[in-house]
């Protein structure tokens, strides 16, 4: 019971922070709200028996991405004062579009009688070992491709953002 309440609180927190990301008028605040969202999502991941992923989420997202975002904010707003503006346009239209999409998504999810193939028996906790085994067996090719992708992304980011070519 307490667990359920805790989960509900956690999920509400995730959503509330998300809303803040989307409507906060200060860009730096938005970034920080995103950090909180990602952290609380990590907690949900733990609840969903994915502690390894939660760790990755914290290290990669909250650590890497948020830092990157802050870097970006600072690089592009060097002369900014306390508040970095993050303006909003046509909020009503955007809201209508988002709500329509949400209605369709929810309708699809709730109209589907069985959402998962097996009898809904929650799986056991997935260990890091299992993840590693899948990574190096079934998903070996994808794993290798991913490394090439990260390399390409790195090369691309460097070549775009460096000021002068060597």
């Amino acid at each position, binding site marked *: 019971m307490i667990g359920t309440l805790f*989960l509900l609180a956690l999920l509400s927190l*995730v959503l509330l922070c*998300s*809303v803040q*990301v*989307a*409507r906060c008028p200060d*860009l730096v605040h938005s970034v920080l709200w*995103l950090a909180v*969202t*990602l952290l609380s*999502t990590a907690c*949900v*991941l733990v609840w*969903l028996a*994915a502690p390894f*992923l939660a760790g*990755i*989420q914290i290290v*990669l*997202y909250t650590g*890497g*991405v948020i830092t*990157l*975002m802050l*870097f*970006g904010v600072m690089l*592009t707003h060097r002369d900014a004062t306390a508040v970095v503006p*993050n*303006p*909003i*346009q*046509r*909020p009503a239209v*955007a*809201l209508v*579009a*988002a709500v329509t*999409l*949400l209605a369709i998504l929810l309708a699809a*999810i*709730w109209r589907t009688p069985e*959402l*998962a*193939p097996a009898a809904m028996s*929650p*799986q056991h906790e*997935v260990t890091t070992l*299992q*993840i590693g085994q*899948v*990574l190096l067996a079934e*998903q070996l090719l994808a794993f290798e491709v*991913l490394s090439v*992708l*990260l390399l390409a*992304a*790195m090369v691309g*980011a*460097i070549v775009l953002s460096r000021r002068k070519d060597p």
Partner: protein
Amino acid sequence: MIAGDLRVFLTVSAVMFCIGVYGILSRRNAIGVLLCLELMANAVNLNLVAFARFSTGTMGQVFTLFAIALTVAEVVVGMALVILLQRTHRDIRLDVAEEMRG
């Protein structure tokens, strides 16, 4: 009971996804849009892990791992582009880039 229902997580994920959609539609600052894209990606991760819990198991979690990495790669390149935008247009509001049309 709620904790054991896949739909709850999917619903939360869908809501987060749509908040992200609202964000990318309404934000004018390029970095603001990137943040909301992050939100959408996070919704995808939540979706994947929830499914991993209830049906796909290890494979689902591995998929999530890949999804996280993919998002990071995209964001890195995106941020580089935003910095370039700042350099060429002296501004990162998206409506400065509207020279080509029709």
